[in-house]
């Protein structure tokens, strides 16, 4: 029943997507808007196929920067969250700065990074790290803080060391929260790399996007946007697969029905 409902919902949202694409195509075909302002989906698709090679050359670089930045952010974010969770003093001291750091818009930092670190891959990776770092840190920190008090008391009663408390209880309990942070960061990571590329460089989807925009090839601008969306979804899907693999216990939630006990006679 529930399964059928899910399929039904999916069908509905896919149908809406097709309908919007159709309207969009009609807007172009019936010359309601000129193609250089809003190219119809068919032209965007053609542009993608025609420039597939070039798009892939640039996408590779963007993907590399995004993944690299994401992994570094994950490492640093998890370490920081663990430290802040472990040490109340560190948490009280650093937490306000962590929150404040998020009010600095990345987009104004980008040109500075170019000044400091040049036009290579480094400033782009750093921007991705900055974008991804915060959601990962906060989500893990929250996950670690919301562990059942009584479960921790039980661990205490069983004489568990700090390391054992993390290993057996805190880390697994924080996993769902951590993964929701990873999914947010993962989706932003491609965008972060593209923003980094806007400040300059030789390769990457951001660079390519500026180039085709300057030549008013609107259909190719849209082609790049489509590739960015596709890459973001790809990263999200990969994280979702990792999530399933990392939390097998959530896949087994059909309750087992206890057999009726035999009556004593």
């Amino acid at each position: 029943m529930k399964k059928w409902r899910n399929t039904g919902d999916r069908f509905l949202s896919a149908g809406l997507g097709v309908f919007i694409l159709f309207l969009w195509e009609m807007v172009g075909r019936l010359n309601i808007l000129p193609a250089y302002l809003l190219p119809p989906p068919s032209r965007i698709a053609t542009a993608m196929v025609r420039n597939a090679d070039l798009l892939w050359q640039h996408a590779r670089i963007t993907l590399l920067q995004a993944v690299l930045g994401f992994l570094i952010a994950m490492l640093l974010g998890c370490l920081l969250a663990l430290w802040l969770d472990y040490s109340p003093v560190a948490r009280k001291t650093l937490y306000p700065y962590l929150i404040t750091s998020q009010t600095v818009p990345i987009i104004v930092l980008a040109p500075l990074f170019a000044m400091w670190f040049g036009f290579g891959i480094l400033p782009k990776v750093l921007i991705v790290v900055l974008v991804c770092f915060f959601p990962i840190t906060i989500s893990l920190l929250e996950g670690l803080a919301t562990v059942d008090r009584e479960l921790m008391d039980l661990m205490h009663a069983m004489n568990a060391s700090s390391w054992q408390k993390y290993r057996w209880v805190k880390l697994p309990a924080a996993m769902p929260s951590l993964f929701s942070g990873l999914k947010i960061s993962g989706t932003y990571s491609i965008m972060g790399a593209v923003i980094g590329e806007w400040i300059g460089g030789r390769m990457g989807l951001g660079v390519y996007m500026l180039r085709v925009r300057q030549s008013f090839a609107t259909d190719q601008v849209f082609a790049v946007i489509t590739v960015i969306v596709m890459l973001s979804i790809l990263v999200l899907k990969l994280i979702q697969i990792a999530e399933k693999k990392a939390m097998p216990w959530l896949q087994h939630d059909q309750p087992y029905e206890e057999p009726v006990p035999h009556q004593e006679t």
Partner: protein
Amino acid sequence: MEPILEAKNIKKSFPQLHTIENISLRLNRKEFVTVLGPSGCGKSTLFSIIAGIAQPDRGEVIIENRDHTGVAGRVSFMHQKDLLLPWKRILDNVCLPLFLRGLSTREAHKQAKPHFPLFGLEGFEHYYPSQLSGGMRQRAALLRTFLFSQDIMLLDEPFGGLDALTRQTMQRWLMNVMEEIESSVLLITHDVDEAILLSDRIYVLSHRPAQVRQELKVNMERPRGINYFAEPEYIRLKEAILECLTH
């Protein structure tokens, strides 16, 4: 009989709340003792103190003639909630105390497996807790408690979260298990029938600030039959306890 565990003159207040006023109790070797008292009177607090995870304001906890006040890890402790780890299968869940002690997976499994039939968990070693019924989860939690420390177990309303029918089945089951194992048990409950069915002795506590109102001995043969509640001893005890709780 020599006491294996003694709590002497325990007193505990929280800010704004005077919970325990001078409670002393004792548990003899292989004895089953129940602490019966109204909700919120400080029974769980008392157990945290005996388990060493909370400090009393005054008084001491003596285990086998040694001071254990505020020292965790000597006795095992079971809670009303099963507190099984959702991410571990039943076998690994019950082995948790052995893992914490540094045993390898193989050694721990080898120690735990022989107890599965007695605890009614045979065949469910590789299920996740979420796949089992409430009664089975409590049995798993009890096996985990047992594997941590077999000689002294504190059970804090172990069946409080179960429906009435399952609770009765579990009480009978626990009574039978007690015939097979050699543990000394302190049980918290506010179920009078449960207390009489399972105990050798019963402490009745008063409302907050909690004190021992009465100490009763249960002089009934073990194992107690299905119609134990028709025996005069049962009726006498129940009257005495209700009298004590309602005044």
